[in-house]
């Protein structure tokens, strides 16, 4: 190891207030047991505790610097614990960094109260008028708890998302929303007016606020400002600070406000670093270490080096901010947790084997989780859940992936592998995706056809990107509830009546059609293969699409141009990684489509009744991927109201906490759930009994 690295490592160890592991007595009473179990443990790939030479130690060790890990780290640090956060990526933030920054909490939280009182924020940034009536903002934790556990609510997919929520979890959630909102505000997070509620954030009151920073000359978290360059320039650039363009926040704060997840993730990261949290980035957790595999305390983790490099110049990717980083490049390290390990490692949306437990057709590896380029190949890989299972954890809420519309869907962004995250050049990972994507409004689908891996249409293109919202405020028939807005009644059998379900059921089936076995699918996995939007020059000109870089890439294999349809099919076949078979029928499909346009009707998929049809005949011809995304995932480690992980016997695994998408039992989209979990986990982990 280079002297410089040794030095960095030493500094890091010093900073986390070392304590002698042997003296702490972890081995007392278990030494004999380890001798007899270590052989078995080794055979199972489990590290024998007594043989471990710990490289680092801290009171609380957190896996994942996202929207569970960062609040947990700050909270534990606030309560006096030393904290190490590891993350598999080169930069903290996780999925939170590319999110919309929308946080639904409620139960009478400080922002609901602020809006009720007609007040702004102390800095004077929030001057926009209140968006809801006082009645729409008035509630208490009991009311919020009932909303999140209301058995009677059916969503537009005829699922009952809240019925399956873990009561203990949601009681704790309702009781901690106030404190979490306050905690965020005390850690440089600015939020605008309350506006509606997230999908599955409850149907009875408005609870959502979006995070913002004010556009200014320079980025200064303490002052609440972001430079124009960091906030991004529409249609041109995003930045390392904000991988997605920050949006206009005039309506929720005031003119000059720029919103999205960067205005949440960066302030939390800034605060964590300022308070002395240590970060070991480029570090993937491979194992949670328990005294014995299925008993005793969790005492630490094993983690491997996971650097990422720019594919164009080979340079290693570096975090935006460096203070508090421990730059350790050793292949394997062991980190001891004196009090607790917190799993905030994200979900399983990018692990095809794991997600196919719920839906076998999702074994297709072509399709990724949102933030694929940002998070890298190991983001959302279910490793937190799998590591928990290896030390005996139970699972919860595994069926809830199927009941929320954004879990998997078509975001409608062509020519990119990651259609959810519309990143522009400027972020260090842009070159990994190569293209922003052609973001089409739904109406624009009238100008194209969509085909499967053999070149056949499979659905009415106008319906492909439609999806229903999750059960959320304001309630109403479109979201599965019979009554609108404040007229929604909690725990009312009419919500789940057959009449209501019949009236609202509108499951969009395009995603299922796209993933279906088709003529190119082969045993054993019968992968569906990629999905292609096919269009011509006339469509591009008629509907004013920008198909030039950075929206498309001539080299990333997600966009092709050809003089003829036959040549287009051949280019796709040879140039796209997941195109495993020829698009045998593409020319025939286009010819058939043109004959349907001439006739004025589409007997195969009923196009033409809502929008006009257009021939695809003017060269050059184009193919762009239309990929679905597995955005967020539900189902994961079972936790209790203190965010402690529960084992197969219903007992707490001592010293192990989890939250966010690594945990299950709460079907709620967005950041609110994970932030509250992090706050709760940090609170209890800091006070956990020492070994």
């Amino acid at each position: 190891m280079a002297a410089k690295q040794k030095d960095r490592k030493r500094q890091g160890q010093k900073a986390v207030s070392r304590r002698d592991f042997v003296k702490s007595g972890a081995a007392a009473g278990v030494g004999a047991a380890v001798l007899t179990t270590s052989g078995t443990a080794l055979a199972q790939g489990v590290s024998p505790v007594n043989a471990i030479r710990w490289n680092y130690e801290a009171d609380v060790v957190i896996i994942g610097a996202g929207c569970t890990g960062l609040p947990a780290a700050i909270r534990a640090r606030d309560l006096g614990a030393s904290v190490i956060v590891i993350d598999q990526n080169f930069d903290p933030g996780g999925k939170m960094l590319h999110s919309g920054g929308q946080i639904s909490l409620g139960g009478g939280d400080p922002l609901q109260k602020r809006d009720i009182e007609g007040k702004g924020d102390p800095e004077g940034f929030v001057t926009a008028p209140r968006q809801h009536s006082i009645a729409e903002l008035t509630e208490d934790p009991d009311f919020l708890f009932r909303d999140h556990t209301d058995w009677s609510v059916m969503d537009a997919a005829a699922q009952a998302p809240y019925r399956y929520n873990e009561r203990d979890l949601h009681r704790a959630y309702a009781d901690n929303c106030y404190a979490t909102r306050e905690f965020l505000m005390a850690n440089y997070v600015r939020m605008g007016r309350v506006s509606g509620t997230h999908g599955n954030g409850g149907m009875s009151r408005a609870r959502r606020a979006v995070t913002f920073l004010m556009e200014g000359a320079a980025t200064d978290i303490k002052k609440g400002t972001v430079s124009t360059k960091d906030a991004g320039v529409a249609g041109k650039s995003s930045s390392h600070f904000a991988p997605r363009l920050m949006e206009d926040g005039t309506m929720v704060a005031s003119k000059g406000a720029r919103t999205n997840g960067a205005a949440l993730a960066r302030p939390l990261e800034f605060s964590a670093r300022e308070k002395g949290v240590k970060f070991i980035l480029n570090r993937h957790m491979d194992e949670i270490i328990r005294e014995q595999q299925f008993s005793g305390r969790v005492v630490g983790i094993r983690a491997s080096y996971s650097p990422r490099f720019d594919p164009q110049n080979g340079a290693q990717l570096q975090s935006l901010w460096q203070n508090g980083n421990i730059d350790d490049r050793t292949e394997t390290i062991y980190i001891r947790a004196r009090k607790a390990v917190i799993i905030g490692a994200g979900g399983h949306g990018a692990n095809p084997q794991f997600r196919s437990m719920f839906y076998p057709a999702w074994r297709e590896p072509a399709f990724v989780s949102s933030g694929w380029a940002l998070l890298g190949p190991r983001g959302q890989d279910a490793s937190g859940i799998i590591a928990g299972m290896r030390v005996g954890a139970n699972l919860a809420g595994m069926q809830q992936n199927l009941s929320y519309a954004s879990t998997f869907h078509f975001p409608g962004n062509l020519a990119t592998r990651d259609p959810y995250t519309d990143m522009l050049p400027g972020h260090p990972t842009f070159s990994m995706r190569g293209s922003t994507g052609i973001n089409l409004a739904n109406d624009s689908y009238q100008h194209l056809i969509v085909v499967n891996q053999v070149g056949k249409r499979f659905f009415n293109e106008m319906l492909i990107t439609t999806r229903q919202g999750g059960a959320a405020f304001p309630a109403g028939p479109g979201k599965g509830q019979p009554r609108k807005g404040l007229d929604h009644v909690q725990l009312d059998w009419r919500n789940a009546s057959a009449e209501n379900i019949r009236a609202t059921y509108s499951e969009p089936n395009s995603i299922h059609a796209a993933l279906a076995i088709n003529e190119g699918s082969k045993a054993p996995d019968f992968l569906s293969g990629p999905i292609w939007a096919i269009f011509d020059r006339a469509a591009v000109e008629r509907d004013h699409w920008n198909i030039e870089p950075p929206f498309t890439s001539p080299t990333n294999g997600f966009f092709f141009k050809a003089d003829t349809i036959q040549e287009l099919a051949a280019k796709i076949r040879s140039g796209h990684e997941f195109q495993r078979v020829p698009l045998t029928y593409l020319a025939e499909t286009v010819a058939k489509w043109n004959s349907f346009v001439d006739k004025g009707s589409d007997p195969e998929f009923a196009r033409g009744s809502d929008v006009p049809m257009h021939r695809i005949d003017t060269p050059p011809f184009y193919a762009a991927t239309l990929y679905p995304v597995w955005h967020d995932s539900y189902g994961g480690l079972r936790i209790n109201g203190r965010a402690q992980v529960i084992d197969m016997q219903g007992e707490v695994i001592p010293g192990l906490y989890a939250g966010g998408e690594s945990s299950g039992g709460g079907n709620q989209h967005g950041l609110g759930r994970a932030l509250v979990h992090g706050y709760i986990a940090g609170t209890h982990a800091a006070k956990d009994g020492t070994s």
Partner: protein
Amino acid sequence: MDSSPEAPIPNPANHAVSVVAWDIPSAIVVGEKFRMKVGIKCANECDLANTEFGIFDESGTQVSVATLPAERWPGTVLHVAEVELEAPAKEALYTWSVKVRSTSLKTNSEPEGEIVHAEESINFGVRVVGRPEFMVTVETVDAGDQRPLSGARVVMHPYRAITDEGGIAKVRVAKGTYKLFVSQTRYVTFGLPVEVEGDMTARAELDVEPVTERN
């Protein structure tokens, strides 16, 4: 070129030819002349200038013969020709074709000293309609600020038009029942069933399509 195992092994002296046909009017009045574009290329990008091609009607009768100019269609290597044709005298949807016959080209560079360009053809639809007697005037505005929308696409199948700078499109149609569509980028398509029994005016107020929220 496709180098995948499924692709046929190319014979260097046998060149594939592709034909594309476009800009065919969506409704052509009986007996009237109309123009369309034909693009033809060799997969090996040979110069096909002066190559002859024919247009054939639904019965296989050649209705036109033309030769390819040296000119290429922008963004492609297709030789592009504009041809003028005459619509049949009877209303119907016809399937016509463009055909380029097999040709030989003497060369010194190929092993056999000769390149063979294979025969190729493509079908296209020709919608022939009676003389439309009524004028439908469509006025298109933004539903919010009532601003005229220019460049909007007006479709009353098979008739099509584009709105002018004042948001007005005039579509000459035959008597009958239509679904009048007006579509414009970033707006929700306007659709209205109309019964045309004389000259008429329709007003299309288009709503901006809501942006999908990503959170």
